């Protein structure tokens, strides 16, 4: 199919705008990557950092040797993989019935869920509940505690996606005698790959970045997640208290250098960035093609 000149210019302009946007978005990462690979002196230098003029892997060595990185990673991978899968199942199971207009008392049930988006008991009652359920210091709390198992937001979005699937596709299955479970599994789910991928991505990223629930519910260091350890490298360094508490024997050595902070940042972000390309295939157009013909 040949494209007109107008069309080609249009494509070019769009691509150009996107390119500019991407360059601005790349710069912080190039900067941090460069710092993470710099010697301390090079990192302090003023100006643009596009690549390290003096290379050093010291920062990565230090970051990777920081206490807890490896079992933190294990815990994080556990919660991201298992948590996302379990979430997907629960969210889909909840969204589907709510998407059916013929669900008895549908409005009532929907309200039960929506209400929780606005009225929340707070951290302390939730903690007491978790404690009474015996989930304190258990890795399961990463999967079960709110807001992780079912994100109301994701669930409602998925519900609306389900609502927009043409009813005819379901009718066909129902006429064949399929019950709701069958319909959900064999018709709805395959048609909903984009939204499932989206919810999975959201859930995975939330799990990957989570740190507060670990601090509150978990006591054993071996069960804490990666972000808790990494945050200590990045966050603790910026307040004035440090100035007063800074221990003299360490002097400069006691302060976490920018290079290590940058390396930590890279370690935090890269794995999840690598996840996206695997999910990209679910965002392909034209899933619906042929569905009506069959």
């Amino acid at each position: 199919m040949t494209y007109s000149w107008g069309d080609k210019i249009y494509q070019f302009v769009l691509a150009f705008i996107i390119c500019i946007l991407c360059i601005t978005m790349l710069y912080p990462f190039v900067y941090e990557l460069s710092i993470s690979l710099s010697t301390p002196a090079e990192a302090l230098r003023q100006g643009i950092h596009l690549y390290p003029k003096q290379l050093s892997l010291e920062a990565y060595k230090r970051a990777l040797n920081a206490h807890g990185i490896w079992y933190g990673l294990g815990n994080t991978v556990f919660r991201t993989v298992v948590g996302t899968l379990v979430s997907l199942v629960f969210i889909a199971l909840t969204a589907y019935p709510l998407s059916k207009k013929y669900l008895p008392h549908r409005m009532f049930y929907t309200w039960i869920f929506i209400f929780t988006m606005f009225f929340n008991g707070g951290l302390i009652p939730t903690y007491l509940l978790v404690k009474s359920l015996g989930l304190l210091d258990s890795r399961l709390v990463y999967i079960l505690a709110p807001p992780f198992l079912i994100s109301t937001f994701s669930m409602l979005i998925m519900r609306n996606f389900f609502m927009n699937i043409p009813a005819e596709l379901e009718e066909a299955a129902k006429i064949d005698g399929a019950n709701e479970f069958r319909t959900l599994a064999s018709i709805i789910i395959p048609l909903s790959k984009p939204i499932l991928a989206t919810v999975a991505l959201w859930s995975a990223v939330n799990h990957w970045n989570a740190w507060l629930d670990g601090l509150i519910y978990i006591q054993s260091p071996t069960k804490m997640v990666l972000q808790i350890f990494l945050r200590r490298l990045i966050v603790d360094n910026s307040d004035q208290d440090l100035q007063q508490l800074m221990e003299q024997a360490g002097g400069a050595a006691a302060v976490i250098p920018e290079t290590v902070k940058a390396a930590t940042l890279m370690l935090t972000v890269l794995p999840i960035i690598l996840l996206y390309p695997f999910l990209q295939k679910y965002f392909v157009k034209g899933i619906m093609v042929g569905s009506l013909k069959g």
Partner: protein
Amino acid sequence: MSKWKQGFSLVLAAVFSTTLLGGCSGGSKGSQETPSSNASASADSGAGSVQPLTIKWLSFNPPDKDGNAVQKYLENRFNVKIENMRIDRSNWNDQLNIKLAGGDVPDVFWLWDANDIMLYSQQGVLAELPTEEIKENMPKYAETVDQQDDKLWKYGMIDGKSYAIPLYWSVGSQPYVPGYNGKWLKAIGYSEPPTTLEELEDVFTKFTNDDPDGDGKKDTYGISAVGKGAIGIAFNAVFGAYGTKWNTWIKDKDGTLVNSMTTEPVKEAMTTLNKWYKKGIVDPEFITNDWNKYRQAFYNGKIGETETDWRYYYPTGLVYQELKKVDPDNEIITGKPVHGPYGEGVAHAFGVKNSYIGMGAQVAKDEKKKKKIYEILEALATDDEAYLMSYYGEEGTNYTLEDGAVVMKTEFAPEANRGSYGGGTFYGFFGSGKSSLMKDFDFTKEQQDFAHKLGDGVQTLVDAKLFNVPAEKDYPDLPKMTDEYFIKFITGELNPATDYDKFIDKWKKTGGEQITEQVNQKYTEMK
């Protein structure tokens, strides 16, 4: 069809059962690894019992693992079992509140400041620890406290009652002195740092206009500050020249305490700063500086003067190292506070007041535990072996002694790295300057000499109000207002000549007056 139904039910069942099973086993696992709070052996059967006491320990920078070297040492030496409570610095209050609400009250209770004492004592989770009792049970440590500042006992008192053991910090008595870019000073023709306010202005003007870094661009300034978060000690060089400090409580002629902002010297200092800002010798971007950017401005050659305490100027110190890395043949010339219209200049110092160690309310009912905790704390502060072990670790493994002073092995120099064996501030409350008996371990002779030289003849100004008063709770956003006005007077948005008095009026009306009253009440009580 039924295959799908079965499939689904299986998935559901699997998910549910793992949930329930996990919940149960998680719970029991949990209670094995961290004994519940009820397991404390306070059911000690009296004298002669060898049951170790369980002590719930809350401090900061927790060790990586339980059962670490330092913990074991303490447990063996004092016949106790220590339960480590872990709370991250970044979210301290939130996490602590949650634990307290859940009934998890620590026995050894780290308290950041007197405000914490007020909050937690009002909530009823702190045991009362009368000063006499502390002096009786920790005699040697108490003596050092008296030597540092006998008011330390009183700062943290709430309604006349004492709830915690005061910590001091010897470095806190050391002044913040100005440090100048050595090359720049020479370039503008000064062989010595400035000693008067006029000279200071001249130095800053030349730093700005005479291109001291010789790069042909007008990209340099005299002075900057940390606008984001440290306005209280911003531009000390100027305030100090007038013998004062911003928003600090000082004694009036008749002995009452007033806030320095209400006095003439501060107004004049502000006027001067306003003038200098207009002249362009003050870095206008001080407003968005955090500590990192402030130090960066100095070592990257944007400003010519910085201010900090001796530890940073010492060769192993941060400011020294940073400059050396970027500009190896430069050096920092430290000066003393300059003299101004009111005579000798003063330097800022934080004062020796530091944090507190309290005990959970339940300890008040457990005489044995209380005595045990006192015993441990006294040893940590005054017994060489306990002190060294808890803060530094094992000689040979973690550090070596050179000339009596501790030199950490490089991999353990950062405090964060001591978590692997439990060293650092978690058990070692008194580490690094918090027990004057140990100063020869903490600081080498060179360092002590360096500090003395730097502070020799320097008059320090320490805030007289090192305590909190209830009125501050009613006007919690007063600091925000003073910060705002500070910036506005300097940048010229407001004119100090005409608007300063209005500002003071407003300050008085929105809490300043009440706070002043209560401050003086407490101050009289403390005498």
